[in-house]
């Protein structure tokens, strides 16, 4: 694996981190496996693409993607999931139904062609680092991923909301007993997690492109990240993203036809020894 491929792996890992961190936050706190997360990624990407195409502004595309998908997350939590609270499997299967509906609706609106979100001029072209010529935009994604990691760490470790989320992951009843409206924390987390999926959709849409089965692919990668890293641990997500990103790049270079296998083989081995992932704790 040369330096160029190493960078490819790292930038893909950064994108995976953005998407999977939202998935893991929701899974960790609300115990909801949101199988519509991939569909939210895809919808975010498509909406961001349309907004960026019409306005010519990448930033506006990002804002639209984040806000719209956060709103969908709000509706999903308040409109549907509230009816099945406390039944883990019913929640998961309901989000699966939502994923099917959203994916099909996206197909109606944007059709089956593949789109690429337009990159702003400042990020076009490439730069030479350590002797390789590398696309600027992918480096930007890497930087953005690291920034989001730092921001989320600060949010979780340094703010009141972060403290509530961490406490909620460990023992939601206890948090509620101390007079906190835990449902509001849950809702905020759900919306935040969804927004991250939307942002990921826009970021990924600019270098992986958007097509009808992109949601399933990113969902499976996110699942692998969270299964490897463990539920509700941000550091676990970062480690999982790096592992999956690197393995995927390695797999595509060495066995292009079996790339999926290269990711899930190690995941299966890991599960045999640590069923809850590297940093996962029993619920």
């Amino acid at each position, binding site marked *: 694996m040369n330096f160029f491929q190493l960078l490819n792996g790292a930038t893909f890992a950064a994108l995976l981190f953005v998407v999977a961190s939202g998935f893991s936050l929701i899974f960790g706190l609300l115990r909801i496996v949101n199988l519509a997360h991939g569909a939210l990624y895809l919808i975010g990407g498509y909406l961001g693409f349309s907004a960026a195409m019409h306005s010519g502004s990448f930033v506006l595309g990002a804002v639209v993607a984040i806000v719209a998908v956060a709103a969908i997350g709000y509706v999903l939590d308040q409109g549907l999931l509230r009816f099945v609270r406390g039944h883990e*499997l019913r929640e998961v299967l309901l989000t699966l139904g939502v994923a099917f*509906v959203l994916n099909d609706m996206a197909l109606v609106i944007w059709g089956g062609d593949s789109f690429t979100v337009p990159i702003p001029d400042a990020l076009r072209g490439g730069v030479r680092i350590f002797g390789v010529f590398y696309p600027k935009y992918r480096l930007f994604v890497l930087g953005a991923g690291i920034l989001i990691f730092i921001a989320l760490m600060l949010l979780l470790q340094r703010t009141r909301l972060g403290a509530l989320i961490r406490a909620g992951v460990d023992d939601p009843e206890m948090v509620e007993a101390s007079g906190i409206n835990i449902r509001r924390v849950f809702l905020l987390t759900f919306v935040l997690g969804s927004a991250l999926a939307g942002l990921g959709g826009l970021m990924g849409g600019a270098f992986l492109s958007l097509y009808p089965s992109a949601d399933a692919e990113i969902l499976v990668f996110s699942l692998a990240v969270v299964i490897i890293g463990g539920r509700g641990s941000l550091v676990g997500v970062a480690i999982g993203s790096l592992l999956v990103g690197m393995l995927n790049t390695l797999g595509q270079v060495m066995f292009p*036809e079996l790339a999926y296998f290269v990711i899930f083989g190690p995941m299966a081995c890991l599960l045999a020894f640590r069923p809850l992932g590297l940093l996962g704790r029993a619920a």
Partner: protein
Amino acid sequence: MTTLETNASTFPVTRQRRSILLLVPVLLLALAVLPLGLSRYHLGLATEMLIYGTLAMSIDILAGFAGRTSLAHGAIFGVSAYVVVYVVSELGLSPILGAILGVIAATLIAALFSLVAIRTSGVYFLLITLALGMIIWGICLRWTDVTGGENGLRGDLRVGILANPRAFYWITLAVAAALSLAMWRLVQSPFGLTLRGIRDSESRMRSLGYSVQTHLFIGFTVSGFFAGAAGVLYAFFNSFVSPTTVALAQSVQGLLMAITGGIGTLFGSFIGSAAILTLQNVVSSYTERWQTVLGLTFILVMIFAPQGLIGLLRSLVQHGRRR
């Protein structure tokens, strides 16, 4: 609540339930004379219902009796169908050999999957089986030399007597009935009772000296065998496989049928399969958006009728009596 609402009690069938079983020969006879009054199109639909009912039933063995909801069974089913079409049309071997190899392949895949998945339960089990099923999908999509990639594989499997729709229906009915009987015997056996014990309390079964892992491994593998057998029927029925055959939607649809029929009712799977396929058929004549309808049905069933149609009727009846 980490398992789906199941209709299967911890205890074996009571005498009252046994009397219901006397209806089985009558029902089978009715199903056997059915083709005489059906058009070719509806006969195909009835055949499909039997095939998918068998798949849903194999999912129900795990979901209703072992408390493990699998999203890999569509892929296991599809692997078997792929193997049958590949062996018969690409390698030119006999259909019987294809069928045997298909079932063996599905059973092996299920055994492999279960080694990874049985250590977990609840949502984790669902996630891991989902990811495992997606690997199969990824391989079928990308391994173009063998699987034909997105175009899939086509082969004329319906030769000789199989070409006759009525004969094919009867063969499917006979196979589905035999498989259902086998599955019913399985869940009524001491082995099936142990699975129910594991569903209700793993630690209790462990302290009673049962090997939970071994029972789940065998349960998953056997359930994969049945899914594979359904896949063989599907391969002959459809004569075509593509990544859609192994996609997540296949597992989801199978699970939805099992849930609609009532998790833990086993034979309810055929009611679920008939209900969902009828819905699909009606919807398709109005709109191309079957996937949306499937998703919406899933959402509605999860909110209003997680215990399935039979469970819904039962609770309505009980509600009426209480008044």
